[in-house]
């Protein structure tokens, strides 16, 4: 488990003050570690990301996820299309803050590597790259595992060039807050996680646990 930073629990705390991660600062008299830039810097302190025990941390109406996207192939994909057949893991990465955001590429490479696990759980991964798409190829190149660099990404990549979906979900910062949502086969929101900083994202383990729980509840 990667170490977690106390402030990762609330972006407000981070944004409102120049507080730091340093646990021993005030007691020892050491200067505080410079605070993370959060989303704004695009490369917030990496601690706290890929959380195994991620729990829903935001309230969403089901209507908020009545979204449609244009895929990189030019086709329009509506999340409602999956109702009745598949769960959906909707992943918003941050976009392109001027360079490939390491947390984004690591998360994406993990989704690629574990895609079969999602398929086995009747789940489609819908991946959204907000903002200008001109850097998408560069981003995907950084995210593909070395041994499958010549293969296409197994799940659909959606564009949100005007940040319409990001704004509708209220996850806008300079780009997008890294956010993950799970919709079950009935289109109900079962999990909604908005990262407190660039590195605060649910781990694969956390997502699969959520999907397993959904499957279990469906059997009951």
């Amino acid at each position: 488990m990667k170490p977690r930073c106390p402030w990762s629990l609330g972006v407000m705390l981070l944004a409102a003050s120049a507080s730091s991660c340093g646990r021993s600062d005030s007691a020892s008299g050491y200067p505080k570690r410079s605070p993370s830039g959060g989303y704004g810097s695009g490369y917030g302190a990496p601690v706290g990301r890929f959380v195994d025990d991620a729990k829903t941390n935001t309230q969403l109406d089901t209507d908020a996820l009545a979204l449609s996207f244009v895929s990189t192939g030019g086709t329009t994909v509506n999340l409602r299309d999956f109702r009745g057949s598949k769960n959906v893991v909707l992943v918003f990465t941050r976009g392109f803050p001027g360079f490939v955001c390491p947390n984004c590429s690591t998360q994406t490479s993990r989704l690629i590597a574990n895609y079969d696990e999602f398929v086995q759980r009747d789940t489609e991964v819908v991946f959204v790259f907000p903002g200008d798409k001109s850097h998408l190829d560069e981003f995907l190149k950084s995210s593909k595992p070395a041994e499958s660099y010549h293969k296409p990404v197994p799940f659909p990549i959606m564009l949100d060039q005007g940040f319409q979906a990001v704004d509708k979900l209220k996850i806008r910062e300079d780009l997008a807050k890294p956010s993950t949502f799970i919709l079950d086969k009935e289109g109900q929101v079962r999990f909604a996680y908005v990262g407190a900083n660039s590195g605060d994202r649910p781990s694969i383990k956390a997502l699969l646990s959520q999907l397993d729980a959904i499957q279990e509840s469906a059997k009951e």
Partner: protein
Amino acid sequence: MHVQSGAETKTEFFALATRLKMISAELAQAASIESTESGTPPAQFVTEQGLLDAPDVDIIESLLHPSDVVPGYELMDLLGRGGMGVVYRARQKNLDRMVAMKTVLLNRMSDPCDVARFEQEAIAVARLKHPNIVTAYDFGRHRGRLYFVMELVEGESLEQLLEQRGRPDETTAWGLVRQAAAGLAHAVAAEIVHRDVKPANLLLVSAPEGSPLPAGMPMVKLADLGVALLKGGSESDTRITMTGATVGSPYYMAPEQLDGSDVDHRADIYALGITAFRTLAGTAPFDGRTVAQVIAQKLSGQLASLRDVAPDISQESEMLVAAMMERDRSRRIQDYRTLFERIDHLPAVSRPVASAAVQFQQSAPVHGAASTVEFAFDRTAASEPAADVATQRIAARMPWRRRLAYGLVFLLLGLSVMAWICFSPWRGRSSASAVVGDVNMVPSGWGQALYDGSTLTVWSPIRGEWSHGRDAEGGKVLSGRGGVSRQLPQYAGSDDRPLRNFRISMLVDLQQAAAMELQFGLGSDPRSGMPRNVLRVARDGVVLGRRGQDQGKLTPLSDLIPFPKPDASAAANYHELCIERRANHWWVYFDDQVVGRAASDPDGELHEIRLFTEEGAALFDSIEIVELVEYKQPNVAKETP
């Protein structure tokens, strides 16, 4: 010169990569197609994709242009590669003879200023001429490479024979050691110390007809005499030890090499003693499983006794080996003349060769082909894993008092290190009272990913292997073993302002590594040894320190912070390393905890960090740099600078 088309070169590039077993045929085919489609040259493509590292690519490029690497020579094939160099079979064109050529890329040498010294010493090595030394033919520098041209010896090494067939009989063992000593004695007369005597550097070939050697006795050729100089003296030998980059060497190095003292020929006598022990017993005189344990045993002088491990060996042999392996060099055998006399008076050596039960079989010599040497092996020893046997035997036969003594020695060593760290005069530099005046800083909004999951060319390996790896959840991360350097950006933002204050952070999972180091604030003057700050993360603790030069002794600048106990249930155990350069200081954090502070000289430091791992690979993720600017809180008086 034959000019090849792009397609022809591309096909050959991937065919060669496959033949050299660098990548699979399937991957080569896919990469070839992808490279063609993207219009990217193969070398650039495989490097960017992390399929091959820079040294691999250099080998392929060299073999693709075999006459362009060193004038007058044509590379024929790859013979082997080590931590610093690559050995090729080559043809010397003007004499039409086959030679061995070792090449070392100059950018893989830590200190460019050492090159001139190496060249001078290499000339001295090239003057040596002795039947037990691989003859050096030529040496030079060409297009960013140092090259050594040597006699091509196509025999097996003593290391290979011991591994594959076990130990020879006592007489043969001393015959081999004596020949190696003869070569070393010749070298020391020219004031050259080998520094890396070990079974892997004793090549065995069939003795030429008419040789004075007993019938069937292989001839020893000492290898790497000149190339050992590339390791750059005692300090660098220690470097190799500390990083574990050369696994074999620390086992044979003399204690004075390990602690950075000046080295003379007695270090070679010590290493030859360990070699003799290994040859006679089939195993090394250590029961330590890690380099650190072996070093501790060496420094304490508590090595196993030869007859504890191999009771059939004579007492005289045991005493001679012990005299060669004496920890204190002033009490060690002092010169080769004494060594020859002692060897020649051993019962196993002084008795007539005809009755020594030495049995050799050798294949008929074939010109240009490897000659195979066989001798009488101890099949029992060969059938058992040497290290396990050694451990079991040592444990079983070591009296309890000695075991207790070993334990006490380790304990005392540990306490000494702790005491040194705790009471070091440097310790006070990280005291809290010294922080007054440091400026609070915040990110400016500019940053850069130092590892972006795609481009590996910006990471320059110093040694070992660095490539794209996968973490426990399949995420793409930097996987590394050995050492690597990364240039830092010098300017920030669209206005290209100088990047003076910044934070570098990364996640590290030690994985198999015993330790890793983040080196930063390296002095930019190579003549000074490039002193640098070191954040050392080891399983026995985390410490900020300073080294005067690459892998020199670490002077602690902080207390030792306990390394968190790994979470056994977790697939990965990441820790966050963070260094911040704020004006004239480096502030160092480990998992958000302040480790300490070191002085910074923004104008005299390289814009570079280096990562090292010891004894295995570690994973690195989210390596980022962020510009920091002074924090100006509205309506609040800032701290006095």
